[in-house]
């Protein structure tokens, strides 16, 4: 490996090497053409595949639920009854659209809301009860790690985030649009 370092050192000592390096490396990193070329040559595909294992719950019948995108339904700051109403409505939208597999993520332990539908329920610690003397991190960091882990574990490709009022018109539209469709020719 020493020869590589010596060669690099020699290269960097060439007149104008510093400027060339800054400009060229910067351009390479930003170039969509180069990125596209690398992707083709090395067949890098980050899209991945839909998970076969994550449950779709008990609402949908038929085969093919493993083709549906896993969707995190994140409800923060709502009361338990709002969570229950939201999950009820999510179930109805799922039934009507057969378009997604929900994972309910809430900061109140409204487990009974998801139980009848067989949806996974993930509980976040509420910010209002966060005690800095108890946790060696901030609530923001905690949520980032938890939600990041949920995306990775369930391989969710979509999420909607709801506040104290539950679903609004836009989130209903988003949930209703998740069914995979073939790309336009």
């Amino acid at each position: 490996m020493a020869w590589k370092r010596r060669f690099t050192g020699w290269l960097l000592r060439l007149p104008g090497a510093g400027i060339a390096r800054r400009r060229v490396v910067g351009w390479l990193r930003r170039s969509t053409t180069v990125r596209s070329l690398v992707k083709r040559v090395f067949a890098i595909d980050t899209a991945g595949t839909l998970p076969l294992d994550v449950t779709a719950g008990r609402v949908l019948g038929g085969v093919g639920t493993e083709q549906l995108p896993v969707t995190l339904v994140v409800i923060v700051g709502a009361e338990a009854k709002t969570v229950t109403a939201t999950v009820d409505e999510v179930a109805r939208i799922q039934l009507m659209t057969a378009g997604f597999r929900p994972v309910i993520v809430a900061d109140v332990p409204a487990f009974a809301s998801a139980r009848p539908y067989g949806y996974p329920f993930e509980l976040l610690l509420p910010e209002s009860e966060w005690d800095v003397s108890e946790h060696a991190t901030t609530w923001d960091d905690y949520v980032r790690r938890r939600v990041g882990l949920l995306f990775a574990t369930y391989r969710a490709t979509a999420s909607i985030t709801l506040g104290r009022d539950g679903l609004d018109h836009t989130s209903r539209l988003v949930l209703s649009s998740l069914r995979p469709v073939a790309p336009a020719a």
Partner: protein
Amino acid sequence: MSRTATDDDDVIDVDVLDVSDLRFEGGTSGSVAEEIRAQAAGGYTTAVLHLDGPLQAKVTPFNPAVVRCLEDGSASLAMPHDSVRARVAVVRHPAVLEHADVDLPGFQVDQVVVVANAAPRDIDGYVHYRVADVNAAARRLFGSAPSWAPIGPLVREALAEELSEERVLAEDWVNIIDVDAWSARRTGYASDRPVIGRHSRDSPQKWPEDTAVLRQVYPTDGSMDVRVLGGAMSVKSLIGDLPSAWHVQPFGAADPRDFLAGLDFFVYYHNRKWVEAFGRTILEAMASGAVVILPPHFAPVFGEGATYAEPREVRGVIEAFYGDRERYERQAAAGQRIARERFGADAHVRRLEGLIGAARPEPEQRPAPPATSRHSSERQRVLMISSNGTGMGHLTRLLAYARRAPQTLSPYFLSLSQAVPLVARFGYRYEYMPSMTPTGLDPDRWQAYFRARVSEAISRLRPAAVVFDGTWPYKGIRWARGDHPNVPWVWSRRGMWYKGMNRDQLAKSAWFDLVIEPGDLASPADRGVTADAPATRVGPVTLLDLDDLDERSVARQALGLDPVAPTALVTLGAGNINDPSSAIRIAIDVFRALGVEICVTKPEIAERFGVHDEHVHVLSRYPLSRHYRAFDVAVSAAGYNSFHELLRFGVPTLFLPNLDTALDDQRTRARYASDRGWAHCLDKPEPHTVRKLLEDLIDNGAAMAAAAQAADPGNGAAAAIEAVAELLEER
């Protein structure tokens, strides 16, 4: 910091502009973050500017320590197109400035200091940066030539060859550290043999290049416990497979504070060609309270805060300290004292004062110093983890321990049971994670998820111990243990497993530092594999003691029952294993025929409940056992909790054991009680036999229940949690 309105833009006006590649994983970013905090505490305002350096080719987020400073308002993030005015720009890592591919037309700084955290070139001639190019970049970006601030004597020596004396600050720009945030509680050695370790990035420069030296400083023979945070691929390529006595974690796999807290000795030796100018992880180890052993060239930096030895001397030095605790503690204290004096926040404020004068008085605009996030309570937290059984037995048992915990312990729950909010009624905080079945996740993925959740919780909550109650220790437990090797684990597992079953699970006792077996009144009949297994055995565990129960009249009033009518309790499990409806029906019909009022329990987490009868009181209370004096007779499954609560609290009972459990041998338990004359039991309830036995209980049950109470050795919950406390005291 302030934003000043001008004709066409806002100006970020600060005392200090910290400039670096803020994506660095290691000490550079950590030092930037420490300095930001020191600046905030000293009244200096800060902005940070990120420049893409040459060492990070992949898309990478900012270092979390820097992000925290930005989020809590200790600093603001300046973008290259911003207008910024600063009294000093402090550039960390000269190569970052050298390779900067930006223009900063809106930046005005009074002076520039380049902190040289490494020499311009290695011993073998490899160039890290060119001083002339860095100077040129500083002039281009900030309009003035910089002053240079070496991070230690070795770098100062190297810079002297390329810079005139007046361009170099008189004092080294040493890294700083918040010693209190790193100091670990140490009551003795971590193990029965020295635990030594190191924390550094895994590159060939950071490890000894010579096999003999490597083995001298990091024994491979198992005589010492060697722990590595940061990876050891370089070692693997040097000596083949990693020694089995080593425990190696990749960079970032554990919180460095936790890692260092588990070491007795921090031993850091690197490639002789590498100029390690400072070594922030060394400082962190000193602050943690470990004894630090280094090659002699570090002596000018760390002074008496560390011990210096040639590689061949390292083993002897460690053994000498290990054999003399008093000397060990003296050296550890010296390390912390030096860390505080030379590398504390005050040292940084003093050098800033020397550069730019005192902080400007703008107290109302300054963010308050961030509250420390370290758990400061003297009570030791115990993380109680319960698996998700068919009922609430695991959770209830842990709750029984928690209620009797000494004042020195602070229980906190993480449960796989959706019944976990119940613990809040007893004043405990809790978290929940779903078990595998309701998620649909495949086993390996769920195990990885369990590990990640538990490891995250341990990092965040910093428990002194973890107590797991369940009969099936997950693989994720072993992995999580590996992530936090210093946190002891306790396995609370009841006995009475089906004969010959689950032997492989019992072998997992080796994963735990202590195994507690809550006793069973029927234990003489236990033929399962736990019967002879080593464990700390305590009496049968129930959530409540007899003294906790309501008097009969109070209990009946609380449950809304007739004050005098004979009343029966029917409790046939949580309803998640099988469908007990038929048994319930038989019991209800028989009691009605006998003129007995009927109460049926509806479990808190039942998914379905098939009792719809207007003559039946449906009870859903926790803990229902508090009201057991309300009942004259009971029909119950023979799960651990129900069995012991009913017998301990003197309720005449007919046990209908659940025969579909995975592991719990309810039939043996119930039969033993029946054989001893404490209760009746039936495997297959038929109306006529049920009637006969219930009639007998109504007539003679009191004497049977009294016999059971006479055989009760008492609640073992207090002894169980005391065993946990003793385990912690021993450590």
